[in-house]
Structure formats: C-alpha cells, structure tokens
C-alpha cells in the first residue's frame, strides 16, 4: 500500500490579528500551502478543515464549505473536523485516511481559529466546552484549573517543581524568539515566569498558552504522486489517534494522558520506530505541565522525569530531542483549531531544513502530538524526509 506525503505547507502569522477575520486567515494559509506545493486548484480532490468553535467565537458555522467557497475550490467535498484543541491534528489525520482509503489523491488539510473577536471570559467558557460539561465545566472547572490539578498531582507523585514547569516556558519562548510566525517573539526568564500572576495555582500566567488568531494548511498527496510536484516531500510514516474519558476524575491516573500513550504506541509500531529515533517534536503544551506530560507519555523520558529533563536542557534545540522548536503553543500561540496543522508545518520545515535560525541540524525524523481537551483525544503523526 502506498503512503501519504506532505507536499506543501503554509501558515499565517499567529497572534492578535485584529485586522484579519476567520476567512482571511484560512485563505491566506491555504493559498500559501498551495503555492508551496506547486499543485493547481483543480488537482485538489477534497478539503478537511479543523476548527474548534468558530460558531461561538465568531458566529460562523459551516466551516468546511466556507473554506472551499473562499478558496475557490468548489465543488470538491469539504469537511469540517472538530476535536477541541486537536481539531487540526484530526483534520490532518482525516486527510491522510482519505488518501489511504483510495478515495482521494491530493487533499488540503487546514486548521483555523479566530479567537480575539470575543472577550477572554467568553474564550475561556468556549474552550471549557472541551471538558466534561456535567461534572467539570458546569461546576466552574476551567482548563487552567483542570491542568492545575494535574500539575499538583505530578508535583506530589514525582517531585516536579514549579521551576521545572517554568523552564518549559523559558525554553519555548527562546524557540519562539526565532520564529517569525510566532505570537511572542521574545525571550523570557525563569524569574519572569515565577513572578507572573497566578491563574490557577500552581499555574501562573506564563505557564499558560495565549489566546491566538491564526491558520495553517498542508497539501497531502499519495506518495507516488508527490514526486510530480516536489522533491522535498515529507512522508507521513504514521497517523494515529486514541480517546480517553472527557473528565479527569474518571481516569486511573492524573499524571499521564492515556490517549497520548496509546496513540504514540500505535504510531511507533506503524512507523517501526522508537521514541529515541525522533529528532524533533512538536508537542501539545497548552500549559507547561502538559509538555512535561507529553514528553513522558510519548516515551522520550521516563514517567516523572519530564520536568528534570527540561530543567537540564534535554529538550532544547541542541538537546536529546528538540521539543517545540516553533515556540509551541506557549510562545508560537494557540489558535486551537490551527495548532495541530501548525505542528505539522513546523515539522515539515524542520525536516526540509527550512526552519531558519531555529533549525535543528541534521534532523530526519519528526513527530507531531496534538491533544484535545484535558486528554480525551490524543493524535500523533510521525514524519520523515
């Protein structure tokens, strides 16, 4: 069976894009990806668009058709994919599956979120919809609160410290400072993180990813067709997805995301690789503790060692495995529906050697890890040159 390759990538600058609406962002990212790939519009068979909540954040539903409409791609099928903060990763996976099924040859998978049109409390409430309604969000548990519970338990079980979590933010801002697409292109210090105001203790402001507008897109093609368009195709070695309970209290453990573990296990099996083979990874750091969980659950470090590994610099660009070279959700920004696609874009740039000042030298294998909610959806993609 043939595989699937990424033959073109594109993204908007992430940030508070006051002058750009939902459709401007999605079209900009899509057009950039199409130009990058060299395909013509009529070559594209289908559209998969990840977006968590345009309906509540902008009032616009029917995102799939809107993308096809605004991109001039009618009448090809267009599908909106939603899995909370993993909507982008799932759109990518749906695109991959549609090609693997034999139905399509070339598809565009994109993600978009326009979050700055409403005030922060509305954003928090909307994002809270990704948690379990009856026992979590309706009782006032916001995402910072849920991840704070996870952080507390991780600190209790493994001795993880607030400084170790802060080290994630410092490292990701260092990477973001080198990424011209990042929302925060500046470095921060450990002291700044530690002195930032509490959001949900032990999480402080600088432990949290921001509210962001942005979009990203990739063009996917059947492996054997990819060569017609580009000599820098990135092969998708594995695409996997797993689910878990929406509510934290229904889980056996608060200190691991089982959906991530299962998705990673399947992905490594499919790719016939091991965690140590990964050179560069984009992981889902919606909060700093989430990156610590991710690098443990993906198998890069032993459970409980993620904080220490970060503190030692093992996840820096020149470390054991380069984590979140884009700046991650923390510094590059987190337009929720776009994040999963942005991760694939960053990995593609890294593997092509086009990541500019943040380039990880000689990287060959990359991984993208996208989480929905507090871990109810886990999606992992492994890619290579």
């Amino acid at each position, binding site marked *: 069976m043939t595989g699937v390759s990424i033959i073109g990538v594109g993204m908007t600058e992430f940030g*508070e894009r*006051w*002058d750009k609406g939902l459709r401007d962002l999605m079209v900009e990212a899509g057009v950039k990806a199409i130009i990058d790939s060299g395909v013509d519009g009529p070559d594209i068979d289908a559209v998969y668009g990840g977006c968590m909540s345009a309906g509540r954040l902008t009032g616009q539903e029917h995102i799939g058709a809107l993308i096809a409409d605004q991109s001039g791609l009618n009448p090809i099928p267009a599908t909106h994919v939603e899995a909370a903060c993993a909507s982008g990763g799932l759109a990518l996976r749906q695109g991959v599956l549609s090609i693997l099924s034999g139905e399509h040859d070339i598809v565009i998978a994109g993600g978009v979120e326009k979050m*700055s049109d409403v005030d922060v409390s509305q954003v928090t409430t909307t994002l809270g919809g990704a948690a379990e309604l009856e026992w979590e969000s309706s009782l006032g548990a916001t995402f910072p609160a849920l991840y704070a519970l996870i952080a507390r338990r991780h600190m209790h079980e493994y001795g993880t410290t607030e400084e170790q979590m802060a080290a994630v933010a410092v490292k990701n801002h260092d990477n973001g400072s080198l990424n011209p697409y990042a929302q925060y292109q500046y470095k921060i210090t450990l002291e700044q993180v530690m002195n930032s*105001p509490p959001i949900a203790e032990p999480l402080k402001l600088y432990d949290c990813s921001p509210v962001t507008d942005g979009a990203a897109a990739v063009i996917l093609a059947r492996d054997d067709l990819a060569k017609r368009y580009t000599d820098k195709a990135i092969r998708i070695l594995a695409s996997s997805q797993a689910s878990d309970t929406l509510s934290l209290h229904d889980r056996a453990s608060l200190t691991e995301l089982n959906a991530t573990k299962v998705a990673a296990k399947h992905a490594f099996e499919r790719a016939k690789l091991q965690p140590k083979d990964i050179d560069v990874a984009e992981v889902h750091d919606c909060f700093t503790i989430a990156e610590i969980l991710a690098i443990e659950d993906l198998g890069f470090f032993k459970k409980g060692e993620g904080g220490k590994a970060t503190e030692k610099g093992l996840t820096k660009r020149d470390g054991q495995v380069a984590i979140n070279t884009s700046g991650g959700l923390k510094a590059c920004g987190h337009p929720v529906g776009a994040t999963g696609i942005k991760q694939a874009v960053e990995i593609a740039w890294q593997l092509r050697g086009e990541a500019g000042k943040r380039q990880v030298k000689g990287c060959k294998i990359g991984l993208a890890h996208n989480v929905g909610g507090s871990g109810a959806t886990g999606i992992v993609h492994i890619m290579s040159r």
Partner: protein
Amino acid sequence: MVGIVGYGGYIPRYRIKTEEIAAVWNEDGKRIAEGLLVKEKSVPGIDEDSTTMAVEAAKNALQVADIPSNKIGAVYFGSESHSYAVKSSAAIVAEAVGATPNVMCADLEFACKAGTAGMQICMGLVKSGMIEYGMAIGADAAQGRPNDALEYTAAAGGAAFIIGNKDTIADLNGTCTFTTDTPDFWRREGEEFPRHAGRFTGEPAYFKHTTGALNSLFEKMGTKPEDYDYFVPHQPNGKFPLKLAKDFGIPAEKVLPSLLVTEIGNTYSGASPLGLVSVLDKAKAGDRILMVSYGSGSGSDAFDITVTKNIESARKRAVPIRKYIDKKEYITYGVYAKFKRKIKGI
C-alpha cells in the same frame, strides 16, 4: 490667529488608591498599579457630577481669559457622563457662568474625545467670524463597573478652554482628526456602565487612531515630533501614552508634565484637556505643544499649539491644576461605593 484665551481645570478632592480597590477583589494592587502606572484615582464627591465639574473648570477659564462672560457666543460641553440623557448640560454651564441667553450650546459625546471636538468646533466658529469667543469643555465622572479593569482608572475631572482670536495665550496652529468605525468601548442607552473589548482597545483602537491623527498633523503642518517641546496625549493609563511617545521618538520628559493620569486616573473627556492645562501652567512663550486626544468608537484629534507671550500675565489669574491634584483626601472602597452610588438599596 485663533487660539486659547483662557483655560482652567478642576479635579475633585477625593482619591482612592489602586491598592484599596484591588484588595476588595483579591487582586495584587501593587502589580496593577505598576502595570497601569496609576497609583490612585480621583473620585467625585456625592454632590458632584460632570456638570458641576464643568462649571468649576469654566469659571477658572473665564478668570484667566478676563473677558465679560456675555461675549461667549458658544458653549460646547463634551462628556460621556452627561448629567442628563435628554436636556442640555452645556446650557447649565452657560447659565452658571453668565453666558446666557445669546449663546449656542450643545452637549457633545465622542467617548473620551468630545472635549477636543468642542475645541475644533469653537476654532471653526471663531475663524469664520460667527462668534467672538467660544468655550469648549471636556469633563467626566467616569463610570467603571465594579471588578472591571476600568474600575482602577475611571476617574473624575474636567477642563475648559475659551477660544478666541484676540490676545491669545496659545495659538491653535492647526488640527487634524483620524476617525474610523471601531467598536472598542461603548455604552448603550440605559446601560449603567460601559463595556469594552479588552485588549482590542490597544493597538487597533488607541494606538492606530492617535498615530493616524499625529501623522496627518505632521504632514499638514510640515512638522516632526522633535519640533515640539511638550506632548499631551490622551491618557487612559500611564502605559499607553508613554508607549505612544516612544513610538514617535518623543522623550518621556516631554510627556511627563502632562501625564496626570498617574496621580488622578483617567478623566476620560477631561484627560488630554487637563494634560494641556497642566502644560499651560508652566509653558513659556514660544513653546510648541503637540496634543492628541482619543475617543473610543473611534477617533483622535491632534493639535499643533504655540504658546504666546501673553501666557505670563494670563497665568497670574489661573488656578494651578497642581493645587487640585495636591489637595486630596483618601477614601475607603466603602465610601467610594457610596459616592459612586454603587451600594444597592440606598
């Protein structure tokens, strides 16, 4: 040349500290005060509102102008907290200072810039010869919803200017306005407190419009930021105006003389006018002043002003704004809630 012949300001005596408000909401007052660069704000007494403050400022301006009040042919009063939804506050001021009955009056509203809009209207009326003197007032008893970010800055105060073309103390060389439909901050009919779009009030609102108006003014007047001795920006907090100045390469020492917000909070329609009053209290003949207001919704009025030799003698009749700033009495949040009628059941 058309210019300012009289100026005056007024700030109520009551102050509440940022930390006092923050303590009520379990916030870090020190951090908020440092972030906003606002350590305390003025609070109107229980018998004060925008109109009473406008009257005080108008009286002070008339004293400086030293003209018969019946020569004032127009009173334009800008505020977003007019005492009446329907009934002219400007008429109350005109009556109080003895300018009635042959006087054009209107209440203006353009969020925080209606005071400078009044200055522009008076400039036009004086220039055209329709009136000899016009009075423009910007004053507010600003509303801030309890526990909203605005509560830390929404203050009270106002300033009045008498515009004429004889014996001016500061010439109004030119003005430019930059206006777009930008919904960053608003209060609908019947609503008690304004609502705002959070961080949207920054770059796409305050900075875009003030920058736009200033650039238009520089182009129109053929000037550069460094040609001015003082910069008087709208000051919703201490941070925005200093960043704006920095963006134009204007050193902080040219802004600080007008930066009253750190001591009295944001007086809304009174903010940049009070800043100008503060500068006129110390400027010398020949000094050139750059002023820019900002009103949500949104627009900015920029002014190019040159102080004349008449300033010295006129200033002897002025009540220095510093007198109002320094004459203060701190109140608790409880008294503040009473003064601002935020206690239910009274």
